[in-house]
């Protein structure tokens, strides 16, 4: 319900919003999130409190709007952002730099912890500023993988000064996003509609597998992997199409689902309830894809904090989830989709889901928090 959404105009265009991860045993919903801005003369990383719990009304709805805890200047547009742990955030910049910021919770300040200044750059030595935008970052503490407009893949460790591994010219087109498939394997998407798997243990500078869209090679902008079923991968494209891939078989997507009318900027499976998926787009919409309705006796996956589903037996998951996302005809009464923002006009650049909470940010310089996603 839209009444549960609190909004705040923040006087900067928001490119990324991320919930701070919860400690393993946490029971309460997430309360802190980070945002990054773009296209400002002075871009910032900000930490927000999601809203005052003490302000909960009689019906349990939250009235407090998000309020700023601290912020810090960031050089260049924030292109991507990931929490490394409870305190550290890794930020990808349009200047090609990758920075780890630390959030000091005792005195509510942010500081730059470490920076790889030219993580991404163009080879042409003539140009004065050789930096190439770093378009994507993904963390698996202490490992950090970044990709960029230069087609380069970097593997960093939070505690090491130099890159552990760099694949120059890994891709001849722009790499738009990256995510972990397994601890040593990553997935990338690029501007000619390809999904690639890279095995970072191998010394070869070639992907271990290439998947691609048929027909027009529509650029892919985002990628996420099913939290429990590693072979199920979702990507979003320039035409707004959601593609679901089964990376065990074939080289083409299993299904193509159409909802957005322009670039899909982010796609996220719900981390603890992966029957739900969320996407946002340049067209100003945010879709909630729900496949939970078609399974009659479905175990509840909604656990706070995320990882508890891993303990469920594999067969239970297989039956309920795989059939949902990999079915051949997902449009027929198998999936319920809802646009969570009916009248928005400007782009929704980023979203993040954790527990019952959703946060998203727009080019209309506003951030929105929905704390009762499944109400």
């Amino acid at each position, binding site marked *: 319900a839209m009444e549960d959404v609190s909004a705040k105009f923040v006087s900067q265009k928001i490119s990324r919003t991320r919930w701070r991860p919860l400690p393993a045993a946490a029971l309460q919903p997430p309360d802190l999130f980070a945002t990054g801005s773009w296209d400002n003369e002075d871009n910032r990383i900000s930490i927000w409190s999601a809203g005052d719990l003490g302000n909960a009304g009689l019906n349990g709805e939250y009235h407090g709007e998000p309020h700023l805890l601290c912020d810090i200047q960031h050089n260049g547009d924030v292109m991507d952002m990931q929490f490394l742990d409870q305190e550290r955030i890794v930020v990808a910049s349009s200047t090609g730099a990758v920075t780890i910021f630390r959030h000091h919770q005792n005195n509510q300040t942010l500081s730059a912890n470490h920076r790889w200044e030219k993580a991404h750059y163009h080879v*042409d030595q003539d140009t004065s500023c050789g930096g190439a935008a770093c378009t994507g970052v993904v963390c698996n503490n202490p490992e950090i993988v970044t990709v960029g407009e230069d087609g380069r893949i970097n593997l960093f460790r939070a505690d090491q000064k130099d890159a552990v591994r760099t694949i120059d010219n890994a891709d001849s087109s722009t790499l738009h996003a990256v995510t972990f498939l397994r601890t040593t394997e990553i997935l990338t998407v690029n501007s000619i509609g390809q999904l690639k798997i890279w095995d970072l243990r191998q010394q070869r500078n070639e992907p271990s597998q290439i998947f691609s869209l048929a*027909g027009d090679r529509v650029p892919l902008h985002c990628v996420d992997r099913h939290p429990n079923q590693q072979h199920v991968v979702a990507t979003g494209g320039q035409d707004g199409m959601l593609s679901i891939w089964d990376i065990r078989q074939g080289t083409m997507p299993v299904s193509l689902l159409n909802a957005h009318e322009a670039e899909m900027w982010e796609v996220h499976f719900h981390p603890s309830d992966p029957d739900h998926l969320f996407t946002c787009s340049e067209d100003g919409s945010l879709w909630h894809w729900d496949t939970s309705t078609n399974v009659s006796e479905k175990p509840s996956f909604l656990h706070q904090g995320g990882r508890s589903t891993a303990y469920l037996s594999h067969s239970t998951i297989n039956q309920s989830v795989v059939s949902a996302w990999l079915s051949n005809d997902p449009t027929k009464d198998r999936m319920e989709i809802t646009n969570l923002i009916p009248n928005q006009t400007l*782009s929704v650049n980023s979203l993040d889901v954790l527990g019952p909470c959703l946060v998203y940010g727009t080019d209309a310089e506003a951030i929105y928090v929905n704390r009762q996603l499944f109400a």
Partner: protein
Amino acid sequence: MDTVPSQVVPGADPSARQLCFAWGPAEVLVCETLFGRTGGSRSRAGAAARALTGSVAGTGEGAPSSSRVFVVRRDQDIYIQTLRKLFNESHGIFMGLQRCEEELAGKSRKAQLVQVSKNYRSVIRACMEDMHQAAVSTRDPALQGQYSTQVSILSAMELIWNLCEILFVEAAAAGPLLLRLLDWVRLHVCDVDSMVREVLSSESPSKHKLFWNVVDVFVLQGRMDEARHLLSKEASANPTSMNMYKILDDLMKKMPVPSLGNTQTLTELELKWQHWHEECQRYLQDGTFASNPHMESICKILLGDEDAILEKKELMTTWYHFLVTRLLYSHPTVKPLELRFYAQSSMDLFLGGESGPEPLDMILMAAFEFEMHQVIKECSIVLSNWWFVAHLTDLLDHCKLLQSHNLYFGSNMREFLLLEYASGLFSHHSLWQLGVDYFDHCPEYGRVYLELHIERIPLTTEQKALKVLRICEQRQMHEQVRSICKIMAMKALRNNRLGSALSWSIRAKDAAFATLISDRFLKDYCERGCFSDLDLIDNLGPSMLLSDRLTFLGKYREFHRLYGEKRFPEAARLLLTLMTAHIAPCTFWMTLLTDALPLLEQKEVIFSAEQTYELMRCLEDLTAGNPDKQKFQDDDVETTKVEMLRLALARNLARVIVKEGTVEGS
């Protein structure tokens, strides 16, 4: 708007130096020239800056001899950080207004428009609140001054908007009109609020030295219940004059007021009011309140006595408060079109020749006179932003109030003001995205403006370029789509990112550029003997058909793949087709023929007799038809190559004749 005064550019001295200027999309550059000032002026700098309400950013140093360049901005407020909330939030309201159906007729349509107007005002108020907070929390006095100025500007904007809402959008009729004006005064005359608070919170309000002032404030604003409540406290402290209080209390209680519903007609109200008025008159004349000057003056106010009301000037603070109080107690059923007479005389009486009217007074006066265009014009001159007039005018236009007014330059006033506002947004490094939607709703020139502005957006990252591109594609702005893709492709090419360059030219369907990039790939291949960016070339798909050269590149790479996979007959057939079907550019034939050499040398015969003849013809065409024959023959390496090919072809022909003869014979 021919009477807009010229603007002085601070720091520029037209008396010392001749100035020149150049129009930009949203700014004007004013430069000092080398020429000194001579006699009669031909170009006035004032003309450059006229119609601008902007600020000036002098970029030169103070040295008098150095030439300076001034940037004159049209819309100064666009750059105020705290106002970004106003711009963004009102953008949403504006879009909602453009979307909302005009099907709704009569009352519900009006209710809808009034709601939109209220939404705009609540955004202004929210912004004012933020600005006020900022002013309170900052320690920098200069900044504090700036914020306070902004608060008063926003407050004036809301005051004007609210009055326009009552008079134009809602168009309140006689009766309710007065109630609305009373609300308006109560909402905006806040100077006395602190005094009221102080008295009400004191231990014994009736003993407070400002007690009677507060009672007067309530009476002047028509807040009868509150006034009576206060008076009752005083009454209980003075049992001797109890009777007097009771009478005044009764008069105040009985005062007839217009109702919002249809419960009474105006005539009924006027009749009741007449009776009540006469009753007040009687009590005043028989000296009921003579012993208490405070109460006597209140009674006079109830009777609408102008002198008595004017005596309380300090408590009203503004002439428009005086106007509304005067209407309340002497003309409660005032009709909209009568307002102008009372407004003018109220202002004259209130200011009393002591001070001339301020711009704000002139704007409000114009509103009371129902001179909408005058309101908008004065606001355009006085306010340092286009936001206010653009949005107000758009709303009034949706109320169908401005249709007759066309400007001499073609578009109507609504469009003119929206264009100005949106141009201001486009001059901002970050707010430009909002401007797009405003241009979309300017039917006459919006498109042209958008085309001109969008090309000036710096494309710092591919992501930003994609956003700009999407805007252009959605509006079928083919020219701009091509130019953005070309810029991005050129950038990628400069950075040696051939793959990216190619995907940009594929997006723009730019065949010429795709050919250029394909040639770069082929050149790289010839130099290095291997292909770069195989991931791209192997996956061209249907985009291969964009340009002939791209097709050739894709096919040629396919030949190499087939050869690598040792599928020789297929490779041979493809190679030959590339030449005979003229897919390969002539300059590349020699390379192709050289590629045929290893196939000719294979143990097994691969080219058929017919294919061999065709290869021979290709070779002869190439050597014979070459315009640089002289040069060609001078080149020893090339000559050797040709000789080797001829030999290989001849040997292959011999082998194939034997083989085909044997096969046919058996």
